[in-house]
């Protein structure tokens, strides 16, 4: 808002001319007076089509807009509509991906069993045991991994901020997990967590006299799977948080710390009363993005099990199926497109609710 006000203000210094032909052009005084003299002399300028500012804006916008409209706006609306359609499939040559056209085609096709409209998909998704299971898994992953990652990330950032020598080195090391391929490193973790004495992690446990465990193999206990998922989620996600916290910390005025030291405040008090409140915008940002990201977790999990796109561990291969995993899995069945759409809309609602709750909480706690 502030920005717009500034813009209009600075544009106030310009001359604005309205021509009889309806073209409204904003021009510099020089240009305008040039035009004026020429018209009084009666010299008719070669009629050159001039495109106004708005026209130029639209020309610049068109490439992006076409693709956004076709691959983002339309899919959102289409998927939303699709979520209310039951028992229909996409038929080749009947309206492409346009759900309504396909639905009408299905209505007119006597071989298809009664397609209908309604909330049936939502009812089925919300009463589907596998969906509820995937929701439970996702919530568990979110609730454990997000706070842990944020707290450890914040600790590392604060420590990192308070040292001078080697700061750059440590910062680079802690950033490294960000520039890796999630699939590739997930697979490295899979091998680190090999069963028996073969795995690096089991060898590490052996140092403490703990027996070798099964971690990710087919018969491994689900909570062992979970442990690895959490470790990998933290490892994979912490880099981004540290970076954001570091940039937040460096913008805090040093005077606050000096004042607190003179007053004899302890480290813990300084952290609680100065660092956390002044870092609260970054903490809020990180909390919201981490919650959203963790709710959509999928790639980390399949990469750990290494069995392809639909392997979530366990004998039935759905030990730790997540909501996104559920959506991709039912998408494979062409008769369940409506249900996949409904599930993705449920995911959207959950994400929106979490974001709104966090925004509401932040109104009381965040110091800007």
């Amino acid at each position, binding site marked *: 808002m502030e920005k717009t006000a500034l813009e209009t203000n600075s544009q106030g210094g310009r001359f604005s001319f309205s021509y009889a032909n309806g073209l409204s052009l904003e021009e510099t005084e020089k240009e305008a007076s040039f035009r004026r003299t020429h018209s009084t002399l009666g010299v008719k300028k070669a009629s050159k089509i001039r495109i106004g500012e708005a026209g130029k804006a639209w020309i*610049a*916008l068109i490439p992006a807009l076409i693709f956004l409209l076709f691959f983002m706006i339309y899919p959102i609306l289409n998927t939303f509509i699709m979520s209310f359609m039951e028992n229909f499939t996409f038929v080749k040559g009947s309206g492409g991906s346009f759900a309504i056209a396909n639905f009408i085609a299905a209505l007119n096709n006597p071989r298809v069993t009664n397609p209908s409209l309604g909330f049936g998909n939502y009812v089925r998704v919300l009463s589907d045991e596998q969906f509820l299971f995937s929701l439970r898994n996702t919530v568990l992953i979110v609730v454990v991994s997000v706070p842990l990652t944020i707290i450890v990330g914040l*600790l590392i950032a604060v420590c990192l901020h308070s040292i001078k020598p080697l700061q750059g080195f440590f910062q680079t090391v802690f950033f490294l997990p960000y520039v890796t391929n999630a699939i590739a490193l997930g697979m490295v973790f899979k091998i680190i967590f090999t069963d028996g004495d073969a795995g690096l992690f089991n060898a590490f446990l052996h140092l403490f006299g703990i027996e070798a465990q099964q971690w990710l193999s087919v018969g491994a206990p689900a909570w062992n799977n979970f442990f690895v998922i959490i470790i990998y989620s933290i490892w994979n996600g912490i880099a981004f948080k540290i970076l954001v916290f570091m940039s937040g910390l460096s913008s805090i005025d040093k005077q606050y710390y000096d004042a607190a030291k003179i007053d004899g405040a302890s480290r813990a008090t300084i952290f609680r009363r100065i660092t956390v409140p002044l870092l609260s915008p970054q903490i809020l940002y990180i909390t919201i993005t981490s919650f959203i990201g963790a709710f959509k977790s999928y790639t980390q999990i399949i990469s750990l099990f290494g069995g392809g796109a639909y392997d979530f561990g366990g004998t039935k291969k759905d030990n730790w199926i997540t909501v996104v995993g559920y959506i991709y899995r039912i998408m494979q069945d062409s008769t369940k497109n409506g249900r996949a759409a409904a599930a993705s809309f449920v995911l959207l609602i959950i994400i929106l609710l979490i974001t709104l709750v966090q925004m509401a909480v932040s109104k009381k706690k965040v110091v800007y």
Partner: protein
Amino acid sequence: MATATPIRNRPTVKASGTAHESDLYFATPAQMRAYKAKAIISKVLLYGFLSLLAIFMLIPFIFMIVTSLRNPDCYDWDIATKTFNLLPSWWNQKYNTSNYTLDNFIQVFTYKSNSGSTINFGLYYLNTIYVAGVSTVFTLVTAVLAAFAFARCNFKGKNLLFTILLATMMIPGEMMVITNFQTVKSLQWENTYAALIFVHGVSVFYIFYLRQTFQQIPNELFLAAKVDGYGHFKYLWKVMIPIASPTIVTIAILSLMGAWNAYIWPNLVASGNFHSQSSGWSMKLVSNGLMSLFTNSDTGLSRDTVRIAGSVVCTAPLFVFFLIFRKYIMRGVSRSGIKG
């Protein structure tokens, strides 16, 4: 606590050392020593804590690099005899050979099985480089133009349009994937580069990011350029793009990295051969190829050392990239929320 608290305005003993500490005064030398000792202990704890976590961060990388270079037989023997070692010595007594070899990488790039299933990382590399390169150019051109329109021009409905675009950033990609997957099918784009390049080519986030940079360019520059006879697009090309080039470079890098790491969408639409024809070449990108390396049960490939070598092959270009563009990447990432 109270004994070591530095007190100001009581100049008895002055603590020497860093510029910051020199401002502190202590009542007695003992207090100063206690304060200094505490400072040293906290430094040791601080560095110890950071080092420990740094090791936790680095172990997967060390393990990955070392294992990819290990002789598969020696590695298996270590595991069978429970003598696993993160960094084994150069020479292996049992097999009378070196513990280290480049065979795993050769295997990853040249493996051909009898059953006809091949893993061809050379091809996956070319696919990924092509897709990443073209889609980055596409992303940049559309983002620069759109950001220019939003930052520099006035037109009806600008704010409404921008708000709509921002709102779509909240919506999970899965919602779009369901329809896009059908669209790609009906356009017969399955297993083509178009599906990989155009569907996710335009990024609202980059438009938003670039718009902010463009808005910081003072309006007076535009007026001055206009006096010199620059039109809108010439001004964009000659003035705005050069000024915003650090942001543009950052976006290019993030976009390249994103394309390199893409897995979900390529796996859905391009895991077969070109144009779905059996004679076509494989359309797989590196992440996808790596997944098939792990699910492949051919004896030549199912060894852990070979699989890890595959992981190294996927990660190495990113690392090189990171070392070169560290500044841009870290700055860009701290402003963005992409990836996870």
